């Protein structure tokens, strides 16, 4: 396995450096079966760069993305992130540090919206700002703008998204993910269930984020979107095929 050497000459160049990352799942409830997702991955991402993860389903793209966010616990390797002027290894950082990274440095847009039932979508989106001390008034204004931009009709803003369509939920998820500018953004199929108009909006949001220096790692099944935003493509192969 090729382990990290982070160039001290350009310490700020890579905001995300993955070295030797491996992940497998041991299913104790199913006789201890081990499923290997990927192993020995090395990836660097710079400021303002968008890296697209590409590969057939089941090749470990989502698992990789979740590992970067420390939602999954890698078995080996390191994920070094520039956080507030420090280098943090998300693979081994203590929970409080991970939470701080997630709060200030790393945003994540998942495929599914997971929120407390009965909380309005305006609150869900604005919460990302109020959690950082922004006052409610301006947070709600910003949230409203973002929802409008993603074509969520204003009559839905005060409603909880549980009953919304998949596409609407996805757009609320995107609004929540993009309302705050994170230096690193992880996108798990952000355009999966969106129509052409909203896909365009998402592409624009990604371009804007890149323009202000965000490093983006994403899974884009939509080829057009991928071609539009990706600077590089990282290929995933199903394990066992080339080994």
């Amino acid at each position, binding site marked *: 396995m090729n*382990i990290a050497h982070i160039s001290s000459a350009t*310490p700020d160049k890579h905001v995300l450096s993955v070295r030797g990352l491996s992940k497998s799942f041991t299913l104790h409830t199913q006789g201890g079966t081990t499923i290997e997702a990927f192993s020995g991955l090395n990836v660097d991402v710079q400021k303002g760069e968008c890296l697209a993860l590409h590969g057939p389903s089941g090749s470990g793209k989502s698992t990789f993305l979740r590992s970067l966010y420390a939602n*999954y616990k890698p078995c080996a390797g390191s994920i070094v992130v520039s956080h507030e002027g420090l280098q943090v290894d998300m693979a081994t950082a203590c929970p409080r540090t991970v939470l701080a990274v997630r709060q200030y440095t790393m945003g994540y847009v998942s495929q599914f919206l997971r929120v407390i039932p009965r909380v309005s979508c305006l609150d869900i989106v604005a919460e990302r700002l109020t959690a950082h001390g922004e006052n409610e008034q301006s947070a709600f204004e910003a949230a409203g703008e973002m929802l409008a931009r993603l074509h969520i009709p204003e009559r839905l803003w005060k409603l909880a998204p549980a009953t919304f369509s998949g596409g609407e939920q996805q757009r609320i998820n995107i609004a929540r993910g993009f309302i705050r500018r994170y230096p690193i953004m992880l996108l798990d199929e952000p355009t999966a269930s969106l129509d052409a108009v909203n896909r365009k909006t998402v592409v624009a949001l990604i371009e804007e984020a890149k323009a202000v220096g965000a490093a983006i790692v994403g899974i884009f099944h939509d080829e057009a979107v991928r071609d539009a935003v990706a600077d590089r493509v990282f290929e995933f192969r199903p394990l066992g095929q080339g080994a």
Partner: protein
Amino acid sequence: MMVAQAAKLISSATSTPISMEIMLADALDAEPALMSVRGVTHYYGDRCGCRSIDLDLWPGEVLAIVGESGSGKSTLLNLLAGRFPPSAGTIHYRDAEGVRHNINCLSEAVRRRLLRTEWGFVHQNPRDGLRMRVSAGGNIGERLMACGNRHYGKLRGSALDWLSRVEIAADRIDDRPSAYSGGMQQRLQIARNLVSSPRLVFMDEPTGGLDVSVQAKLLDLLRQLVRQLNLSVLLVTHDLVVARLLAHRMIVMRRGEIVETGLSDQVLDDPQHAYTQLLVSSILQG
């Protein structure tokens, strides 16, 4: 700056990643832990309530203790709240003045002072945490009166403020909790605990006895209050969904021992221990 530079020195000689977060944590941990638990063990006679528990709770952090009934989570909560002493181990609490107390060596007077000023305890059954024969206003005002507030008008004002914060209509202020629904009683219990701006709240299955629809509202309310007041919460629950939505971190207990601990979403989405996997796989998918 030293910390930052040191953190950037990554050795390539070793195949295991250097845990840089130790240095980072030093930077973050300028704020000391609110509660530190080391080796806490409790026996009921020969039977083990909990064994060798280590944990830290930080200011503003919600820590869920999950596990099935009988796993020792309620025993642990009661030990941490100083309700009875552990058979072994230490529990330290840092008070608002920065004084570190060993919970088990506290005088009864100090323990009770903490309980009515810096701590709160939300019981699963609101009847255990409310005075059922006293009006809602009196229930909310009690802690303030215990802390020496002797102005009826101000007490009334605080009670009205807190009723609105827990979404109870102002005109219910003079009703007794017995005239409230279960959800309202639980919200009243929360108001009664939070009125004195505690720093640490113990919650024992706070949503346990409620309808699912009422639960959601209470969860949302709790989450908002925890953030607004920068509360630290020790939350005992068997409901993993509640733990995911409220807690930053969780501890999974079985037979009195911690089997797994970590970020809430990591423990639930990528459980490592066989028992946690069993628990997670038992969640009904909605």
